[in-house]
């Protein structure tokens, strides 16, 4: 921001020539003070452009590169009882896009089934997340709408698609 390095008007020294009467010495510096104040007015800049504030991935208006990317889709067996199989959609969150380190959840909207599921970072700090689904049709394309979320509010939705094995 523009105001860094600017001096407040109170910091400006107002010395005077010793042979001047004090009143005139002060008066002699009034134009200088006025000029400094005018200069200080230029120190601040109204430079917050709301339309340009779109670089935070947690912003619903985020306009940067994709945050999510599909890593892999696979089937895994869960040992019971009962034993069963489930599909796993593993995707990655591009944490390098974050402006500051943050913890988060991801809301997964299954566009086929219409379900919405919150997926957390497991383990904490990991940016590779998994979405599980019990029913699947082999060879069918699956599309998930993903959004970063915290405190029940959501970022920009992104869609990733893949095909069930």
């Amino acid at each position, binding site marked *: *921001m523009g*105001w860094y390095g600017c001096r*407040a*008007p*109170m910091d400006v020294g107002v010395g005077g020539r010793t042979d001047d009467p004090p*009143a*005139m010495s002060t*008066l*002699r510096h*009034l*134009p200088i*003070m*006025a000029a400094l*104040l*005018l200069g*200080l*007015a230029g120190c*601040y800049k*109204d430079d*917050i452009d*709301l339309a340009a*504030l779109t670089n*935070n991935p*947690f*912003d*619903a*208006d985020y306009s940067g590169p994709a945050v999510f990317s599909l890593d892999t889709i696979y089937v895994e067996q869960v040992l019971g009882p009962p034993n069963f199989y489930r599909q796993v959609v593993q995707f990655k969150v591009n944490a390098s896009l*974050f*402006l*500051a380190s*943050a*913890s*988060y959840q991801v809301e997964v909207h299954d566009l086929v089934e219409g379900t919405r599921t919150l997926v957390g970072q497991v383990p904490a700090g990991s940016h590779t997340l998994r979405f599980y689904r019990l029913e699947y049709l082999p060879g069918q394309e699956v599309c998930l709408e993903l959004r*970063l*979320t*915290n*405190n*029940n*509010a*959501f*970022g920009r939705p992104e869609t990733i698609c893949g095909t069930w094995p």
Partner: protein
Amino acid sequence: MNRKPSIGSLVDRRSARPRKVFRLVLAFLLVSGIFGSPAIAQTTGQLRLVVDPGHDFQVILDGAHRMQERVLDLSEGNHRLQLWAPTRRIVDTTVYVRAGSSRELVVRLPYSAEFLAHQQEVKRFRERLWLNKALPTVATVGAAAWTTAAYLDYRKAGRQLRDDKDLYTTSADPGEIAELKNDRIPAHQDDFRRSKVMLGVSTGVFAVAAAYTIWSYRRADRTPLPLFDDSEKVRFDGLVWLPGPDGRGGGRPD
């Protein structure tokens, strides 16, 4: 017993009168010879002048002699005194001086009407001068205070915007970000713009006030004081002729 004077005694009486006159004349001559001088000194009297102001008054005696004496030795009789001092009126009075006596003449010279008018004029001048300096100074100090307050407000609004931007950068809460962008930042931007305009206006007012103050101080310093023309002095100078340093006319008593 009734005795008639003899012829001899009559003769003696006739010759006694001239002798008595002679004795009186002799006594007078003796007395006037021994005490002659003191008898002449007692034909003058002393007049001491006690005048307000006591330091620089002047007096013209009998319309002819201009002096600054405080004690005058004057011959017996009426004497005209015209007293004057700078800024005062001429006081014209006649004093009877008795030979061999000493007396005081107490006079307070009143201020001349011109001087009183001049004093009023000087007072008005000083008041006008004071106003000419004080009002712009007060306006400038007020404008400076306003400008300082506006600057502080402006700085605060600027810092608020900076904090908002920092919060946008660090926040991981989409709700907070939305609230920031929809409500807080626009409100703070309004505050910032308002304070910026206020700072500009106050700075402009301050600059104008400061310039006017400087100008008014300089103008006041250049304005000459009203001069006092002592017309009573001119009158007093005209009452008596004084020789100048060269012995001719136009001399000044000072």
